[in-house]
């Protein structure tokens, strides 16, 4: 009982929301205060949300893969949104200017969105289905393996019928 009480006290003391995981609704991107670029429409779409930073080497390696996914599946309803968690907005802008990604890149100033999502590592990507629910989560980016898994998962989500009438 004392241990249960301690756990409750510890949970209250952190005051942090639970980590977003498969099965949970992904927070609204439109209300997250994201800046740095236009946010594409995501209603009724399959959305790949990636959290990245300019100081994160695997994040840099992941961008060409996300560009390939965007070009392969955009026509069928995939939207890729890459959310930068850089402290410095100029680092975000320089990274985007250097890599010139074909998908949407936005900046999360003050870590408002990532503080709610609470990614377990950098980078982490979330595949959100047409109804806005997280279906798959990829902590880290492991090159071809991650891209192969994402392709398979994206195709399965795109094949699902839209929840919207």
């Amino acid at each position, binding site marked *: 009982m004392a241990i249960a009480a*301690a756990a409750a*006290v510890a949970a209250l*003391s952190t005051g942090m929301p639970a980590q977003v995981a498969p099965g949970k609704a992904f927070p609204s991107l439109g209300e997250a205060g994201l800046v740095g670029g236009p946010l594409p429409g995501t209603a009724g779409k399959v959305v790949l949300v990636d959290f990245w930073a300019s*100081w994160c080497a695997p994040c840099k390696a992941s961008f060409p893969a996300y560009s390939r996914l965007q070009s392969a599946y955009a026509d069928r309803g995939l939207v890729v949104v890459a959310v930068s968690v850089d402290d410095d907005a100029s680092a975000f802008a320089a990274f985007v200017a250097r890599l010139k990604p074909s998908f949407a890149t936005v900046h999360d100033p003050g870590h408002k969105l990532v503080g709610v999502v609470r990614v*377990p590592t950098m980078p982490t990507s979330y595949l959100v289905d047409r109804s806005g629910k997280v279906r798959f989560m990829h902590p880290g980016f492991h090159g071809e393996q991650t891209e192969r898994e994402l392709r398979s998962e994206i195709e399965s989500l795109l094949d699902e019928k839209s929840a919207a009438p």
Partner: protein
Amino acid sequence: MRSLRRKLSLLAALGAAGVLLGGCSTASAVRVHPWERAALADAAMNPDRDPEGTAMTEHVYFSREAASGGRGVGGSGCGCN
């Protein structure tokens, strides 16, 4: 009346234990979250950013101490590596 007092004191003791254990838990400790590691990811934080310099320093150190393998080698530090 005595039973009630005992129950209250037990409850107070459990509450105090909970607060103490909660303070000891890692959840209440300061943590650097994955998205806050920009400074830690800086090249200046890498102690081996000059591999040649590190190799030379180690060569001098281990020659002087006559004990090579004291750094970066697997083992438990028991001197039996």
